[in-house]
């Protein structure tokens, strides 16, 4: 029993340009869906960024003078929720994963194209619910929505809409992950073994397994929370015999793995971006592949390090502390492998590699503060301070977002068939890098000085440092402008791109730019390993 894909007529004048309106339809083409994800999520990034700019404007002065404090709570709740659930998670999995995985493994499409389109279009009602909650008073209990606060909140309707929105987006994420696991496992072109796959596919596989394991548990927590809100139960309400800490366990059982879902595919992007721009084979292919799977396994057993101050017993603290610190091992393996890949390479320091190197340096800062926070004695002191805010922005912005930019620049010629403007790409990088560090580095100091997070007012002694952060945030906001103009202009009028402008060896570069509707006009041909730079195609003798 086979599913036959009809052959496509070839040879029209501009055969591979997808008409613009296709992106507004229920298309089942993985490349269209990938770009739908990337563009949609980028819009949410701008919305989340606008919220961040408002938050930082409020924090430019110690008093709560821009808006009422309740509004401020809604702003940072929505900022966190939008950035995590509507920007980074769907962008790195749905966006890059959908576009790249079939192309990299020599498949015509994902295993379940209809399911794929369905998963994307579920983002729309999910996002509409979340955005709509602004009109009824948005959820304002943080993206964690800890009870009993979230049960006793005044913004009842907003909190309920927040829950349902997350249930829809979570389901979308699960359906996408089913597709990734089946596609990567079963749809590789004949002859491509698991260890012939590009590392991005390994990373996506690991992230998909984490989504499948942990997202349903968050759904369970949210269902119980919605019963507490609407059904009169008391699961998490101590006054009715419930236990709020159970919610924290369930929530973090998803939400800690979620950070790996947000970073693993980006690790994959970096492993793809570095070798062609350094003109060297990746260092330690198997080590990087295994370390993705190790992060996937370890990452499921570290969640309670978010709860060191929740009355967690000591033996549990020690277990979760050791498990957390262990994650630094596979992560370190990756970082050293990337550095060794760059070492002695003929670096092509253009936008993709600039963001790639920016990623490594910023992610290491976030990783190190993560090791600090993973140690219970330090965490207890800086818990819920700006140190934590600084830390997770280094991994999520300095890590994920820098990696996304690296990937966008790297695959822009493939996706659009046109080159971006390199000069404005460099301007974008410098503005982002400087703005990012101005905004988030001082937050570590604020945290160590004791400034709590999630407050609209603060002690006047923190004013100067906060103003530096706010200045950096504005610079970051400005930094997106050259990128947007560059992306739109180049997409429409940029110089036509060659099929393989980076002389890269992974399969997506063997087809035209943009790719044929069925990915390859003829059949894909596996000529070399994904990273055999300078090896004169020695793959056949060494691996077969």
């Amino acid at each position, binding site marked *: *029993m086979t*599913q036959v894909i009809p052959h496509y007529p070839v040879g029209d004048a501009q055969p591979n340009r997808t008409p613009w309106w296709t992106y507004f339809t229920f298309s089942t083409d993985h490349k269209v869906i990938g770009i739908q994800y990337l563009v949609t999520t980028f819009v949410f990034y701008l919305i989340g960024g606008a919220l961040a700019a408002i938050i930082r404007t409020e924090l430019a002065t110690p008093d709560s003078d821009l808006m009422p404090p309740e509004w401020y709570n809604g702003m940072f709740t929505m900022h966190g929720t939008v950035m995590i659930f509507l920007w980074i998670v769907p962008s790195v999995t749905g966006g890059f994963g959908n576009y790249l995985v079939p192309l990299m493994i020599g498949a015509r499409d994902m295993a379940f194209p209809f399911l794929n389109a369905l998963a994307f279009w579920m983002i729309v009602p999910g996002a509409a619910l979340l955005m709509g909650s602004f009109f009824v008073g948005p959820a304002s209990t943080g993206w964690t929505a800890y009870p009993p606060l979230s049960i006793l909140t005044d913004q009842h309707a907003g909190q309920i809409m927040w829950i349902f929105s997350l249930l829809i987006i979570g389901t979308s994420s699960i359906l996408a992950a089913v597709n990734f696991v*089946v596609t990567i496992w*079963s749809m590789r072109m004949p002859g491509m073994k698991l260890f012939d796959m590009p590392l991005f596919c390994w990373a996506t596989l690991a992230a998909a397994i984490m989504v499948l394991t942990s*997202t349903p548990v968050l759904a369970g927590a949210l269902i119980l929370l919605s019963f507490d809100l609407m059904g*009169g139960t008391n699961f998490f309400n101590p006054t009715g015999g*419930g236990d709020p800490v*159970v919610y924290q366990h369930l929530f973090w059982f998803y939400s800690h793995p979620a950070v790996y879902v947000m970073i693993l595919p980006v690790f994959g992007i970096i492993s793809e971006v570095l070798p062609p721009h350094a003109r060297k084979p990746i260092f330690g292919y198997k080590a990087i592949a295994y370390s993705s799977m190790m992060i996937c396994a370890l990452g499921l057993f570290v969640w309670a390090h978010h709860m060191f101050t929740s009355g967690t017993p000591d033996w549990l603290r020690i277990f979760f502390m050791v498990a957390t610190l262990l994650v630094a091992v596979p992560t370190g393996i990756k970082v050293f492998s990337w550095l060794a890949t760059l070492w002695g390479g003929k670096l092509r320091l253009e936008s993709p590699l600039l963001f790639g190197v920016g990623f490594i340096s910023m992610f290491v800062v976030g990783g190190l503060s993560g090791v600090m926070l993973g140690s219970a004695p330090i965490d207890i002191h800086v818990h819920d301070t700006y140190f934590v805010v600084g830390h997770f922005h280094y991994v999520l912005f300095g890590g994920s977002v820098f990696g996304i930019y690296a990937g966008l620049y790297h695959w822009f010629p493939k996706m659009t068939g046109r080159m971006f403007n390199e000069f404005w790409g460099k301007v974008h990088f410098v503005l982002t890098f400087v703005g990012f560090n101005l905004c988030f580095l001082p937050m570590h100091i604020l945290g160590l000085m004791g400034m709590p997070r999630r407050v609209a007012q603060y002690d006047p002694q923190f004013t100067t440092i906060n103003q530096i952060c706010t200045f950096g945030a504005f610079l970051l906001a400005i930094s997106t402008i050259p990128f947007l103009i560059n992306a739109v202009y180049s997409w429409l009028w940029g110089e036509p791109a060659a099929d393989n402008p980076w002389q890269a060896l992974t399969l997506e570069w063997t087809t035209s730019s943009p790719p044929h509707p069925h990915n390859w006009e003829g059949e894909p041909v596996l000529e070399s390993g994904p990273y055999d730079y300078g090896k004169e195609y020695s793959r056949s003798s060494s691996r077969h």
Partner: protein
Amino acid sequence: MTTTMHGAIAPSETTHHPDLRLFGLIVFLCSEGMLFFGLFAAYLTFRAVATEWPPEGTPELELLLPGINTIILVSSSFVIHQADEAIKENKLAAVRGWFLATFVMGAIFIAGQVYEYAHLEFGLTSHLFGSTFYILTGFHGLHVLIGLTLIAAVLARSLKPGHYTEHSHFGIAAASIYWHFVDVIWIVLFLLLYLL
């Protein structure tokens, strides 16, 4: 582009791929199992943290009816498996019979569940035990209903001539795998809520 490299592959099979829907369904059900795992873990934690479990004044759960229900549901898994075997020999009439039998057994299970709900002395909001009891059994009941819908859909489709053959019977396999899943969840649930 040179295609003369050793190890270069230009197969035509890439335009076709085997039916992966069962694999997809199993991956999805593993994930769905985690939803129940989360709820079970929550239940066990509530129980472990509570000073008294079940709370004072909760009547002992009647075991007879849920016991019979469990036997019916577990047996129905063996019944639906017969359909899975029958289609491999292209015996469509037998498939219909086994599916109908499974449907009736599932419906009896749901009826028993409704009867039990109607006669219990505590409600969803009475206490934490009541809340967890109704959420767990309710969620499972919802899955039984979905399973019954799938079985009904297969029965309806089996009337179309040639829809299911010995070589092509995804619907039958899917409905029966889903039914086994519902069954396994119930066994764990029964152990946790009624026996433990």
